């Protein structure tokens, strides 16, 4: 049986990253902790999307809707039924996962393009759908979520280490971090064992995979389910982190942001979603704050960037990265600068000069 050729796990690097994130909130402000918590939460959602797109090859432009589902389930349980918030996270995640799995069944029949369109439409429509049952969801006004205080044990530990009192935001950061670590570890295991292999086989060629005995339908729907599970977790955590959700919290642009993060970080990789999340979350903020403060840039550039807002810079950076590094940051790092030129032309076709046959040519 052939070993899957992946990069050898660099355990030391993982350890460094984990320690970094563990210790991080002790040195930064509470507000920054909240921001980084959201970046981690985004990373969880992107990892879920990555499993779907990168590993099983199905495209979804509507994962924001799954996040919304997770968020609302948690919020409603906590707010209306007074369930302890931490308990609502797995409930929301599992429910969303099941729904995702069910969604995966009709999705089997759609070509990649139509799947993209259907999920895109889902993302556009979901805010309207959420508004409807307004007794349950709070309609346009949304739901407020009370942010829990850190439990005494943890709080004391934190104070001993840093000398300051732990805030809600910092506690929430650690919750998010714990979930992220767990789910990333889960994804890593998944990718190394049979499910991962099966999904990659499906992604690379369904017919061949089926011919090799892979249960294509089963794994594809499973991928949908798992990926929705992740998105649901992320949504639930997101509600906790921001303290308030409404139909407008989950617009189409969120779904697009998730996909963009997945691709830019690097599909079918484990570190990719984290890098992609950091990019997706901090770029809009950076372009608004960081760029104008760089005095060495000419005035015209900074003012254009500042006024045009995140949208333009986002779009430009996105396009540039797709042209020059379509395998994402991880891809760039993995294959090295020497190969940059080859990727510039895509799939190596032009380099070899080989003409692929027209699909319609008899």
């Amino acid at each position, binding site marked *: 049986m052939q070993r899957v050729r992946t990069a050898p796990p660099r355990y030391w690097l993982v350890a460094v990253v984990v320690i970094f994130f563990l210790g991080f909130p002790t040195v930064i402000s509470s507000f920054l902790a909240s921001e980084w918590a959201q970046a981690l939460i985004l990373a969880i959602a992107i990892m879920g999307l990555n499993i779907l*797109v990168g590993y099983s090859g199905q*495209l979804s432009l509507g994962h924001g809707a799954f996040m919304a589902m997770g968020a609302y389930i948690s919020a409603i349980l906590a707010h209306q039924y007074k369930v302890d918030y931490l308990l609502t996270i797995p409930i929301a995640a599992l429910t969303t996962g099941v729904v995702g799995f069910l969604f995966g069944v*009709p999705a089997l*029949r*759609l*070509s*990649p*393009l*139509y799947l*993209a*369109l*259907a999920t*895109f*439409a*889902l993302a*556009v*429509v979901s805010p*309207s*759908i959420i*508004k*409807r049952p307004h007794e349950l969801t709070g309609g346009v006004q949304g739901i407020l979520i009370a942010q829990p205080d850190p439990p005494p044990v943890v709080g004391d530990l934190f104070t001993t280490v840093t000398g300051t009192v732990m805030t809600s935001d910092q506690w929430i950061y650690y919750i998010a971090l714990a979930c992220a670590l767990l789910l990333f570890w889960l994804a890593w295991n998944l990718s190394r064992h049979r499910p991962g292999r099966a999904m990659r086989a499906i992604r690379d060629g*369904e*017919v061949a995979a089926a011919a090799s005995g892979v249960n294509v339908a089963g794994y594809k729907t499973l991928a949908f389910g798992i990926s929705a599970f992740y998105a649901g977790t992320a949504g639930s955590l997101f509600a906790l982190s921001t303290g308030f959700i409404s139909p407008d919290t989950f617009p*189409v*642009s969120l779904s*697009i942001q998730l*996909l*963009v993060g997945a*691709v830019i970080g690097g*599909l079918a990789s484990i570190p990719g979603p984290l890098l992609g999340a950091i990019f997706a979350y901090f770029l809009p903020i950076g372009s608004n704050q960081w760029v104008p403060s760089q005095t060495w840039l000419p005035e015209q550039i900074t003012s*254009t960037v500042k*006024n*045009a*807002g*995140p*949208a*333009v*810079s*986002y*779009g*430009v950076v*996105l*396009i540039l990265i*797709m*042209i020059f590094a*379509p395998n994402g940051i991880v891809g760039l790092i993995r294959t090295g600068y020497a190969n940059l030129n080859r990727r*510039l*032309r*895509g*799939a190596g*076709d*032009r380099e070899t000069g080989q*003409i*692929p*046959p*027209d*699909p*319609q*040519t008899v």
Partner: protein
Amino acid sequence: MQEFLQLVVSGIATGAIFASLALALVLIYNAMGLVNFAQGEMAMFAAFIAYTLINHGMSFWIAFPVTMVLAFGGGILIQRIVIKPVERAPVLTLVIITLGLATLVNGFAGFIWGYVPRYFGSPFSSDSIDLGGVFLNERDLGVIGVSGLVLLAVYLLLQHTTVGLTLRAAAHHPEASRLLGVHVSWMLALGWGLASAVGAVSGMMVAPILLLEPNMMQTIIIYAFAAAVLGGIESPLGAVVGGLVVGVVINLAGAYIPNAGDLQLAFGLGIIILVLILKPNGLFGRAATRRV
């Protein structure tokens, strides 16, 4: 009965708008096998250009063709600068690029014109015309007429001219076309230009109805997708028919179903999903599902 007819005609007018944008989507899909998610934003941008021209004293009927020409040029430019470098990249990369383009164009429009909705005067009067006892809105008829003319012109171009023939050949059979001396690369650029010009019509027809602002086309494009899917993503005729059907259906739904409001959009989604379940190839399409 009168009301029903009015709704149908109104629906056809709305549908004509969807049809124009859907046609633009189909043109690019045929050329490149991908859906241009930026099509709506490009149409919006064109509408803003028309708005600016009109504000500088140009009459609507001059600004209209001028904007179409500018949109044509813009489409070619975008293809040359943004798409061509990644021509042979996998579809996912191209999809992301169109998404990036959409964000970029939207932001750019916001940057130039801001997000406050503007009033875009309609070139048609708001009177009603009496057609054999049925009163039809002149505005609706105008939209139908103008869109119809443009769509007809595109049809004639594609089916009955040599340029149209080489465009179609380059879109569906790039390698074979090269061997026949067709400059496939230029044809792709032309396709983008044409799609952009047709999409611009959609934008200019919508602006008087919806109020001109950067996010104007975001719901329209969903309906355009529904129309393209309904008609069969590869079929230009399907796009037009699909657009008209979607327009009529949601108009009727909006009137006869109580409290429809913003659920009309969900209706659009419903159409997409229903079609994909019942007849995945759409009305006129062919093997739009995976080619193994």
